[in-house]
């Protein structure tokens, strides 16, 4: 399938559902790319999409991706950049159909493929799913994406594949890697892990930010951070960089920061390969260029991880501002007043930092007393809770005020991991011509 042995130039334009909307256009216009990816699915996002889909079965995908493609589909096609995204969430078929409508409306005819098979809700009790399970998705690998691209897809949308698979799939297609090319695949996993959180590889959320902004002008500091891209070579090594002229920086430290993010041990387990993070070598390859090499891979785990989100119950909180003298006594009094009114299963109090004595601003003299409640049903954490707090407004400690008006509780999810056999899951590619192909 190799189109060429030159490195694949692959970018990222989204690190989460809600990331900078203009990033897709910026990445397409900012320089050359072969593939542009976007990650939209965090554990919490699956829960949000699950709630969307309960309200409207035609939803369940990342709607911001639709808006980005409305703006950029023509541009991507014109530039020959393939789009690969997990924005399909719980409904990749629905997203593919929606993109088809957009394309038709704009007189475009891209080949749109989607990849599914990750949704394992139907396995139910066999994998320990109760009635409250909103979502259950196996973390699948990059093979489906690779097969879709090989068949000529311009746009590939998936459900839950691992974030790194958004890079592994295209790289495996580009270089023609087999499923046992573990070192090459592991190299691509590491590149994918670095790219998956967008600007976190280019100076966002970075401890060393002062090296980037300390000598800069206000205009320079206001410049948005560029999104990352990688040049992935045939041996799986890569160079992480960003488009010229964009904000932020790519250094050994910014790349290390992202490598260290959300990893659990030195063996980074994935559906395609186990990547050994203690073999990663980073090198400075010039301004805003960092090399990743030496990555060793080995066979992936036998079983696949499943992200399960269940409805955990309902939650609410109030924040009381406590100002000036006798902070502890004020807090103690209002707690004693409120607690007998609380019926929730769980009540948690926290009291923020003590302000400085003799503070020269009111805010500086104030601390926030926070009460958070949880319950299996909505009533005890609804107005029964927040209303009880408000009723004390004129009848409690001096200076009583709240940071927000009383509100209803909100449902919350509980995430847990389960594991399934590979034989329980069929990753399926739905090609643009309507044919389907089970790939794993």
């Amino acid at each position: 399938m190799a189109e060429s042995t030159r490195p694949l130039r692959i970018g990222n334009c989204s690190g989460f559902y809600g990331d900078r909307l203009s990033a897709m256009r910026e990445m397409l216009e900012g320089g050359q790319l072969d593939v542009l990816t976007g990650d939209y699915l965090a554990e919490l996002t699956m829960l949000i999409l699950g709630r969307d889909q309960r309200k409207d079965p035609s939803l369940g995908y990342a709607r911001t991706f639709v808006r980005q493609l409305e703006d950029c589909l023509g541009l991507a096609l014109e530039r020959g950049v393939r789009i690969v995204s997990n924005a399909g969430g719980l409904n990749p078929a629905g997203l593919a159909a929606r993109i088809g409508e957009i394309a038709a409306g704009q007189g475009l005819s891209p080949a749109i493929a989607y990849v599914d098979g990750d949704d394992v809700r139907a396995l139910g009790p066999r994998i320990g799913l109760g009635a409250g399970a909103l979502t259950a998705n196996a973390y699948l690998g990059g093979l489906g994406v690779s097969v879709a691209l090989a068949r000529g897809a311009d746009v590939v949308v998936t459900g839950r594949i691992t974030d790194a698979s958004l890079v592994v799939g295209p790289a495996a297609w580009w270089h023609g890697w087999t499923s046992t090319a573990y070192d090459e695949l592991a190299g691509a996993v590491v590149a994918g892990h670095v790219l998956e959180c967008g600007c976190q590889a280019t100076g966002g959320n970075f401890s060393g930010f002062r090296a980037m902004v300390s000598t800069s002008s206000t205009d320079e500091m206001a410049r948005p951070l560029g999104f990352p891209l990688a040049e992935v070579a045939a041996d799986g090594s890569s160079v992480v960089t960003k488009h010229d002229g964009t904000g932020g920086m790519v250094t050994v430290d910014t790349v290390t920061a992202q490598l260290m993010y959300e990893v659990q041990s030195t063996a980074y387990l994935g559906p395609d390969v186990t990547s050994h993070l203690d073999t990663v070598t980073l090198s400075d390859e010039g301004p805003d260029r960092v090399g990743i090499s030496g990555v060793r891979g080995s066979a992936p785990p036998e079983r696949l991880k499943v992200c399960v989100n269940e409805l955990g119950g309902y939650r609410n909180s109030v924040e009381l501002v406590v100002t000036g003298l006798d902070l502890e006594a004020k807090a103690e009094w209002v707690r004693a007043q409120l607690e007998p009114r609380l019926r929730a299963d769980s009540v948690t109090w926290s009291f923020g930092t003590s302000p400085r004595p003799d503070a020269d601003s009111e805010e500086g003299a104030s601390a926030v007393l926070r009460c958070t409640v949880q319950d299996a049903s909505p009533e005890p954490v609804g107005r029964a809770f927040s209303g009880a707090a408000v009723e004390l407004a004129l009848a409690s400690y001096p200076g009583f005020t709240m940071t927000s008006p009383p509100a209803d509780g909100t449902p919350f999810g509980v995430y847990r991991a389960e594991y399934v056999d590979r034989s329980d899951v069929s990753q399926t590619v739905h090609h643009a011509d309507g044919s389907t192909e089970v790939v794993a």
Partner: protein
Amino acid sequence: MRAPLGTFVHARSGDKGGDANLGLWVAHDGSPAYAARVAWLRDLVTPDFVGTLLPEAAGLEVEVFALPNLGGVNVVLHGLLGLGVAASTRFDPQAKGLGEWARSRYVEIPEGLL
């Protein structure tokens, strides 16, 4: 002398379900003491040390993985976030600021490393 851990140590933290993840590594700031700093950090960061540095983690199961090629360690704090991001009542339920808190804590740093 006592100085913030972040004097020459970078951090990145995040969540994985109810566990928090904390990466700590020595900054590539051109210091000739880089190798000595890496060795010091690797020896310093034990599960007990993490419980002292971050008292909210005391009593939790803490794992430390050395990543010498990256000049640092990865720390997993099991159960710090309770049932996970959507459910946690913890301040900062995704542990986004955990690394910056860790960097702001004062530790005894040998003079030769500063």
